[in-house]
């Protein structure tokens, strides 16, 4: 909350200072706070070195952040013809963990649309894949574009009788079906 006020105060001071320095003439040879001269070589070297260190630190921080922001992709297997909300509840005691196949978590959704697992929810960037499955075949579901069948994917944490529970929800169906589920504000 203090950020906007600090920004405004600094902006006012910087505006006044730069206006005074731009439009007033300094007395020759007189060095003041308002009319400074160019800094000496050593000060420039120190500032240059600190800037370089700052930029290096920033690059390392961003690099580490980008590396930690990925997660294994998830493969959602949804019963063929299912439409409606799908919910996955994580860290449920006694539920089976999510299996992994080819570096992807397999989330096989039961016919009622609710999957419970003891695995923890994964956070970060990944390209998830969605499929309709039946006894005969598995075929992919588009999750983007006008023909998308995956909508409104959300992560949340709810509390109930069994304590706090992390969950993920998504809607399977056409855009029209999804909009009829979500009230437009």
């Amino acid at each position: 909350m203090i950020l906007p006020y600090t920004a405004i105060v600094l902006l006012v001071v910087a505006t006044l200072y730069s206006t005074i320095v731009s439009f007033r003439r300094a007395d020759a040879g007189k060095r003041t706070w308002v009319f400074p001269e160019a800094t000496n070589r050593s000060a420039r070297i120190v500032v240059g070195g600190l800037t370089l260190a700052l930029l290096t630190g920033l690059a390392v921080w961003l690099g580490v952040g980008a590396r930690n922001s990925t997660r294994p992709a998830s493969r959602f297997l949804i019963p063929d013809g299912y439409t409606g909300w799908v919910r996955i509840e994580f860290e449920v005691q006694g539920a089976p963990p999510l299996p992994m196949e080819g570096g992807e978590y397999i989330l096989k959704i039961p016919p009622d649309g609710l999957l419970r697992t003891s695995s923890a929810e994964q956070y970060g960037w990944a390209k998830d894949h969605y499929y309709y499955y039946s006894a005969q075949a598995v075929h992919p579901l588009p999750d983007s574009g006008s023909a998308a069948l995956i909508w409104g994917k959300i992560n949340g944490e709810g509390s109930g009788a069994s304590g706090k529970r992390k969950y993920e929800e998504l809607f399977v169906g056409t855009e029209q079906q999804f909009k009829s589920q979500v009230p437009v504000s």
Partner: protein
Amino acid sequence: MSSGSGSIDVIMVDMFPFFLYFAASVITGFHVYTLLALAVYGAPSNPLELVSLLGSLCLLIAAYVSLFKPNAAAKLALIACLAIWCFYGPAIAKSVRPKLGGQSSVLQPK
């Protein structure tokens, strides 16, 4: 001892515009960046925020120019500050007006 202290004083005086422009640039830039980042959650963004962000970048450049040419840097900093005010001016006016009772007459009883 006194000459060393005097030397540091001179350096601090000469580097005052650098510190001022640098701090103003980083703080205003970070503030506007956080506002722009809210667009990820669906918040409407304002083109003036981009103008302000460009102004913060110019102010950062002015900070480094001030180490070499303080007067030229001051002119650049002034232009940059005006660009930043493009966003902060209307934003302050909009937040202050309701407190001063100048709210839209549409909301006032007839």
